[in-house]
């Protein structure tokens, strides 16, 4: 069952340079389409600045998308008014990257977790407390720690509190924006396992944004690879990791260390930096760094096509 369907979503941020000069745009998300099923996890990977966080924020309308369609449970939420939007927010939540910045430093954990329920007028105080207490138990925080402030917790605990806050309203979709990249490796696995357990228990769908290929491989059902605001490859996780089609995905995966010293892998080293999303290259945005690019790549913009069953890629040579 499809929970979320994104069609040609664009998020262009205007940057005005002076009064008379031409208005320019950062094309953070530039025509992204995908679907997400109920209970599924879609991983989104890409290097810094490829627009993966902007994508997450525009799906939740935390930043108003420039154009496109976001169908959530069959309704286009971009057409929603303020009241409808507030109502649908109960069903879609976000977990942030930085557990030190995502909790109000002057609120106790109790009031941080109660806030979502209060905002939506759910239950009386007693019922809310009951719900919060059962929730913190699931994430491994003791009841007597509820009246502590965020700075009294470790990074991993804070991130679990951030997850609990997203869960208070019992959502269907959680967008996790680099939820473990600020944590120690030992704590990362705890938090990832918590994500997996909660998914089973509440039948959650995740959009899991990360730049860490191993983390994404561990948690995702399907994976989308982003480059300069576009999805360049989208496939089932095993398909993508074992048989990458797009040259960008190949180069990314070649950077993954293999825990076996006898096995040698050919590294594909990309040259140059990520081009500016203000002036993206013509044709295929990747042609400036692509090891197999030809002159055709400069003129022809490749569309994301289904090259093998359930395996989509945007490259004219695959």
């Amino acid at each position, binding site marked *: 069952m499809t929970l979320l369907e994104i069609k040609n979503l664009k998020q262009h941020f205007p940057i005005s340079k002076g009064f008379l000069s031409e208005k320019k745009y950062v094309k953070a998300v530039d025509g992204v389409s995908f679907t997400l099923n109920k209970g599924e996890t879609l991983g989104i990977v890409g290097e810094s600045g490829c627009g993966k966080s902007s994508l997450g*924020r525009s799906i*939740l309308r*935390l930043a108003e998308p420039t154009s496109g369609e976001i169908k959530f449970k069959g309704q286009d939420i971009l057409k929603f008014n303020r009241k409808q*939007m*507030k*109502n649908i*927010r*109960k069903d879609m*939540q*976000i977990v*942030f*990257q*930085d557990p030190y*910045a*995502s*909790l*109000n*430093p*002057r*609120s106790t954990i109790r009031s941080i977790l109660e*806030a*979502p329920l209060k*905002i*939506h007028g759910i239950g009386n105080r007693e019922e809310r407390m009951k719900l919060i207490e059962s929730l913190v138990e699931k994430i491994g925080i003791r009841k007597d720690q509820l009246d502590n402030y965020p700075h009294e917790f470790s990074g991993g605990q804070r991130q679990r509190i*951030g997850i609990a*806050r997203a869960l208070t*309203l019992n959502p269907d979709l959680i967008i996790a924006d680099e939820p473990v990249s600020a944590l120690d490796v030992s704590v990362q696995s705890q938090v990832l396992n918590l994500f997996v357990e909660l998914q089973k228990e509440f039948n959650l769908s995740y959009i899991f944004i990360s730049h860490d290929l191993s983390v994404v491989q561990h948690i995702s059902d399907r994976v989308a690879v982003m480059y300069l605001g576009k999805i360049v490859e989208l496939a089932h996780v095993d398909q993508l990791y074992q048989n990458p089609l797009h040259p960008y995905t190949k180069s990314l995966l070649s950077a993954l260390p293999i825990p076996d010293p006898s096995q040698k892998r050919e590294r594909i080293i990309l040259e140059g930096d990520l081009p500016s999303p203000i002036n993206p290259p013509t044709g295929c945005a990747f042609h400036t760094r692509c090891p197999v690019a030809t002159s055709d790549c400069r003129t022809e913009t490749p569309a994301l096509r289904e090259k093998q069953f359930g395996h989509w890629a945007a490259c004219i040579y695959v």
Partner: protein
Amino acid sequence: MFRRLVSSPLTVFGFLVVFILVITALFAPLIATHSPTEVNIVNKLQPPSQEHIFGTDEVGRDIFSRIVHGTRISLKIGFLVVILSFPVGTILGAIAGYFGGIVDQFIMRTTDIFLSFPGIILAMSIAAALGPSIENVLLALVIVWWPWYTRIVRSSVLAIKNAEFIESARALGANPFRILFKEILPNSIAPASIQASLDFGFVILAAAGLSFIGLGAQPPSPEWGAMLSSSREILREAWWAATFPGLAILFTVLGFNLLGDGLRDILDPKQR
């Protein structure tokens, strides 16, 4: 917090001065040895003595008692000006910072108009236009003072308004009102409240200045600035008539400043 307070002697000094001032203001009639307004021509211009520890003025009023009662007037002005201009400035600053755009422009350009005059000159002209009285001085100082809080609060709101916990509140569906008052203000009010504690002293100084030039408290009133003003003509024969009100102003401003400085260090979470 107490341990950190005593670790700084200057803060303790400021705290003690302010404490003494508040006690003096609260129990003025009990502390004063004479009536602050009772004229006694026979005893005029007495130097400090056991009977009149700060001496008497040109009509024989006891200067110590007048200063004690003057504490009430000065603290009341300082308190009222800060308590009235602080919320106005804070809320406007938070609105300007959070909403941005045309609202921000309107509020900030308005503060620019007020801030483009030297405060005391603007207060003078307002007080002069409204007519000389202590209430008008109060009103004039409120009008001059709020833009400072607006600026301070706006800049701290700008610094945190894109923090993830604000974004998370929006993702939860919180309305702007709730975000502003529950999430943003508690985290951006500290610098402005320290400024407010410093401002107590400056407001008292400004009010005394306005009274000195005749725009504030009027003669029989034991206001420090007005006392200084009336002592000018007798400065040669009676040094005490000007010295003690002057010292009262000095210690009050100093006390509030040291306390404000100390509070800044104590409230700074980075030093916790």
